[in-house]
């Protein structure tokens, strides 16, 4: 059996395999370098960087839920200056694509970050975190057509780097948001960020999280995210990076079959620091076992075949 070809192209961005960490679950890679060779990854993605240093939200910041977790970290950040001197060089030195996730509280702030990173060099793509549910005012850009368009336009104006719009699942019509992102200049989509949820402590009779609500992630959300990826990839031409509950090779293959061009492993890293290399190995094994030489052949196979009629 020939060694399968795991490489994928996301527009201009070519990755040696379709697996990367989800922003905010991997810091910028340093911690997991102890557990596996980071150069194995298709790309590295940092925790969303903000323009200014920030402390993040008051604790408690996390709580476990059935097959998932709620988090309300609130984007603590070292700020872009430290990012450029400490984190970015580390990411750039890895033998994989460097995707920089940025987050802002306004279109202006997003735009400034994009400009700075455009000039910084060595950035292969920018992921715009339009979907954090844990800002103090709880505004999620990617649930509001106007806000999302504004941010995207501002960012597009400032760079020719590939822009990834990270969508929010907290919407009625994910396809509409995907189309909007396409229209306003996104080169790729990341689907999706966390679902807004909460937990209450029946003993104290108070919400558990310091900020009341938080973002639900982990295996619990996987079936909903899979449906969204299935819908988006059939409706919109942009490459989609899937994110939501992906914990192993089988999960990743499900998302590739649903149409995703790449996948992000998030919460799973916390439980298993080897989740990313195991996911890569799992995809490879799937291809060895079941045929196709190139991973691109399975992307969207679940609907491409279904379109052809069962």
């Amino acid at each position, binding site marked *: 059996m020939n060694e399968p070809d795991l490489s994928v192209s996301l527009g201009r961005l070519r990755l040696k395999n379709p697996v990367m960490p989800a922003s905010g679950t991997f810091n910028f890679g340093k911690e997991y370098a102890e557990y596996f060779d980071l150069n194995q990854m298709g790309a590295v993605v940092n925790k969303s960087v903000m323009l200014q240093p920030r402390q993040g939200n008051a604790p408690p910041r*996390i709580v476990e839920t059935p097959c998932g977790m709620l988090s309300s970290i609130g984007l603590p950040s070292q700020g872009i200056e430290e990012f450029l001197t400490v984190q970015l060089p580390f990411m750039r030195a890895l033998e994989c694509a460097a995707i920089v996730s940025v987050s802002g509280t306004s279109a202006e702030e997003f735009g400034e970050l994009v400009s700075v990173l455009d000039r910084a060099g060595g950035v292969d793509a920018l992921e715009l975190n339009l979907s954090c549910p844990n800002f103090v005012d709880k505004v999620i850009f990617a649930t509001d057509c106007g806000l999302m368009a504004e941010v995207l336009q501002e960012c597009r104006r400032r760079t020719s780097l590939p822009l990834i719009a990270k969508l929010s699942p907290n919407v009625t019509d994910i396809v509409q948001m995907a189309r909007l992102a396409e229209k306003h200049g996104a080169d790729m989509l990341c689907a999706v960020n966390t679902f807004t949820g909460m937990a209450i402590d029946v003993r104290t009779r108070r919400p558990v999280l310091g900020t009341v609500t938080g973002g639900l992630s982990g295996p619990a959300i996987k079936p909903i995210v899979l449906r969204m990826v299935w819908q988006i990839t059939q409706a919109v031409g942009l490459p989609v990076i899937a994110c939501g509950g992906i914990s192993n090779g089988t999960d990743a293959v499900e998302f590739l079959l649903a149409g995703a061009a790449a996948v992000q492993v998030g919460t799973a890293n916390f439980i298993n620091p080897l989740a990313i290399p195991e996911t890569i190995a799992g995809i490879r094994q799937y291809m060895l076992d079941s045929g196709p030489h190139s991973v691109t052949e399975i992307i969207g196979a679940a609907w491409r075949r279904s379109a052809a009629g069962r």
Partner: protein
Amino acid sequence: MFLHCFWAMLITGTILDLRPAGPEYFVLRAHAPQVVQHAAPGQFVMLQGWGEQDPLLRRPFDFHRLDREAGAFEVLFKVKGHGTAMISRLRPGDPLSVLGPLGRPIPFHEAPKAVGLIGRGSGVSPMFTIAEEVRRRGGRSYALVSARSPDRLLCVDELRPFCQAVWTFTDDAGGGAALRQALETLVRDEALDAVFTCGSNRLASLVAQLGQEGHFAGYAFMDAPMACGVGTCKGCVCRVRRDGAGYRYALACLEGPVFPLSEVLIE
């Protein structure tokens, strides 16, 4: 900046023993030589004893005993919810996924003279490794063990061989005031270098207060919900006084779990 300990690893250990240690309390002994080899007092492990996704997250536990010769460690834990209940049902021979050692080792003086150890409930657990280390360095430990009721005074007899003295306090016997008095006497008479406390915010506040007045360094084991244990989720924050004014958030899994009481805010 602090130094991150680069010896953490993920291994599949084996349960050697699991014995009840009181009502709802258990001591688990596991073989995990690679982890034990690099572990030091004050550090912890994230355990997963099930192959499933519910419960999803690993559970953090302090090292109770470190047996380097046998390549084994022990944790002393209370059955609180889902995860600890599952761990309590494991049996010798079962595999146990171990992530560790995590967190910062306690920064010991070269030669500590006298150290106070205050543990409440399962908070007595990490005092054993500290007492051992203090003795190794030629110092003396004095343990004050607190609990709701006498049957919750855990492993006291096991602690005695490592300590100069062990006192116990229970709530029903007016333990709070008595413990304070005992600690004050200790501080006065024994010129303690340091006092460590685990398992009670009330006791941590007491130590913080006496530490300000006296001349010892107080330390508390901080308890924060943790997802990753390694610094990536940013979930496990404690408030720590900042040089200027106000506070900053410190990650308990990286800067802690043991914090100087002169810095950390007990809430």
